[in-house]
Every structure is written in C-alpha cells, then in structure tokens.
C-alpha cells in the first residue's frame, strides 16, 4: 500500500461525504424519511434518517483505484442498500435478514470461486456468519448520538494499524476510508440534538465494512482471535442484552432501551455523548 493512495482514500472519503451530507439531509426532509420518536427512543423530535447513503458515496469515491477487491465494495454497497430500503419504506425483520444472509452467501461464493479472496470453505462459512452478525450488531448498537461515528473511527484506526504492517492490497485503505466517512458525519450527529441519523443504510454500511475488515484480516493471515478483538465491546453489549431479555422472557425482536450503552445515558447528570465516549 502506498502512503499516497491511502491518504487519498482518507481525504476523498471525508470530502465527498461532507459534500453529499447536506444534499441527503434536504432530500430526506423533503421526502419525510424521518425517525419519529416513541417512548423507547433516545431522541425527542422527528429526525431525518439515512445519512448512510452519503457515506456510501464517500466510501466508493475514496476507495476507487485503492487496490481493494471490487467485490468487497459491491458487498458493502449491497448491505447499505438493503438498509436504505428499510429507511425509506420499513420492511419486516424477516425479509431484511433473508436479504442479508443471501447477499453474504453470494459474496463469499463469488469471492471463493473467482479467487478474489483466497479462502477455505470453513473461512467462507465464517465470513457469511461474521457479515450477517456484524451488520445486525452495528444496527442494534446505533441507538445514541455519536456511537456509530466514534466506532467507525476506532475500527478504522485499529484495522488500518493491523493492515499497515503486512502486505494487504487495499485493506488498509478501507480502514482509512471508514475513518473519513465517520469523521464527516460527526457534526451532524454528535450533539445534544442530532440533525440527522445514519439510519439502517449507515449502520449496515458500518457492519458490512467492519465485517469485511475482519474477513480481510483472516485472509491475510492475522490470528482469528486478534481480528475479532476490536469489535468485542459491540458483541459483548449485544449478547449480554439478548441474554438478559431471554432470561426475563421478553420478545427479542421488539424495540427496547436495554443496551448497556443506553443505560449509560439514562442517569441524571450525564454529559453529551457520555455513553458513546465510554463505549468508544
């Protein structure tokens, strides 16, 4: 990886996302693609959701010519588009899950058949599970202002640092592009009253990108445990919450405010972004 192309990935993804975000904000408001608060929401006013589409634009431009397999970019875009469908016209959880599993399976089969990613059957199966799990984990965790943007930066820096020490075509650029699109979203979301939410298009994009970073690390020979460590807090929060709700006999797919990061902002005297900063 040359320093020049990596720097371009960072700057272009940041610049293009920053330019696209105001346009996306206007379109979402005009088309009334709003997240209307209910008693389980952490916000109080209807807020446009779907900023992930601007991030997808930034990611595609930033990674153009970076050496990252095109299939990876198609995969991330595919997950983001599935999320965008839900932002614009709410779809049932069953259909979304079917779409995620089908997309992940097709991506791994194509990657293996065309030798885009050199992997065994076991690794390909692990790849499908990782992609689907991470897309949903990132979606569950996207519940307070700033948490996804902060984690986009943290995941990006971590995987960039891991990939920059080994010859890995374009993977380090994906880490940097993730930093760029996340930083560009900060001014819109990391404040007391968010101007815009990522929506499923953004949380699916974060999950897809992080999932591919994990798979990429496995493919280039990074220890499987080491590749999973950066996302352990996300997995820990989601699995502990699901376990708690299962034990209490609650419906697992109903909306709730039981995540640890949500409890971090419910108490009195919290500062802006306290939960996001502690988790990040």
């Amino acid at each position, binding site marked *: 990886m040359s320093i020049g192309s990596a720097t371009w990935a960072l700057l272009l993804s940041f610049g293009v996302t920053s330019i696209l975000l105001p346009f996306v904000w206007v379109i979402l408001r005009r088309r009334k693609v709003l997240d209307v608060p209910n008693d389980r929401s952490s916000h109080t006013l209807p807020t446009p959701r779907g900023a992930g589409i601007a991030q997808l634009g930034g990611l595609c431009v930033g990674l153009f010519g970076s050496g990252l397999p095109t299939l990876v970019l198609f995969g991330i875009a595919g997950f983001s588009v599935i999320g965008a469908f839900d932002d614009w016209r709410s779809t049932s959880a069953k259909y979304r899950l079917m779409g995620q599993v089908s997309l992940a399976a097709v991506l791994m089969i194509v990657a293996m058949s065309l030798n885009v990613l050199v992997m065994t059957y076991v690794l390909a199966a692990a790849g499908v599970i990782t992609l689907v799990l991470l897309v949903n984990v990132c979606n569950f965790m996207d519940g307070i202002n700033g948490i996804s943007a902060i984690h986009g930066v943290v*995941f990006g820096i*971590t995987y960039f640092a891991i990939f920059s020490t080994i010859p890995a075509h374009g993977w380090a650029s994906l880490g940097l592009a993730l930093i760029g699109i996340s930083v560009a979203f900060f001014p819109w979301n990391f404040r007391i009253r968010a101007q815009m939410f990522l929506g499923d298009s953004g949380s699916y994009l974060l999950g897809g990108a992080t999932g591919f970073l994990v798979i990429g690390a496995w493919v280039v020979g990074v220890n499987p445990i*080491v590749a999973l*460590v950066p996302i*352990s*807090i996300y997995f820990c929060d989601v699995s*502990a919450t699901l376990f708690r709700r299962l034990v209490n006999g609650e419906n697992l797919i109903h909306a709730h405010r039981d995540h640890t990061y949500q409890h971090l902002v419910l108490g009195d005297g919290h500062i802006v972004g306290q939960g996001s900063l*502690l988790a*990040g």
Partner: protein
Amino acid sequence: MSAVCGILAVAAANNLVTIPLLVVCVLLLCSIYLGFPKLLHAFSRHHTSP
C-alpha cells in the same frame, strides 16, 4: 473501551501481547463495560443525596 481493545489487538498483531493475555484483558474490559451503568448510578446517587 473499544479503543483499548483496538490497541490490544494491534499489540497482539505485532506479537507484543500473547493471545491468552489478550483474551484475559478483553474479558476484563467487557466486564468493566457491562458494570459501568451500576457504577455511574451509584456515583450519581452519592453526589445528589443531601
């Protein structure tokens, strides 16, 4: 918390931390994270009580 996990992962990728030690540290960090809300509420109660 995720940033600390990230630093540990990078250290392990560069063979500065062994895998067993990495696993122990991550489990410890996850336990601290899950215990944070109780800690914050206890701290908040302590400072708001007359």
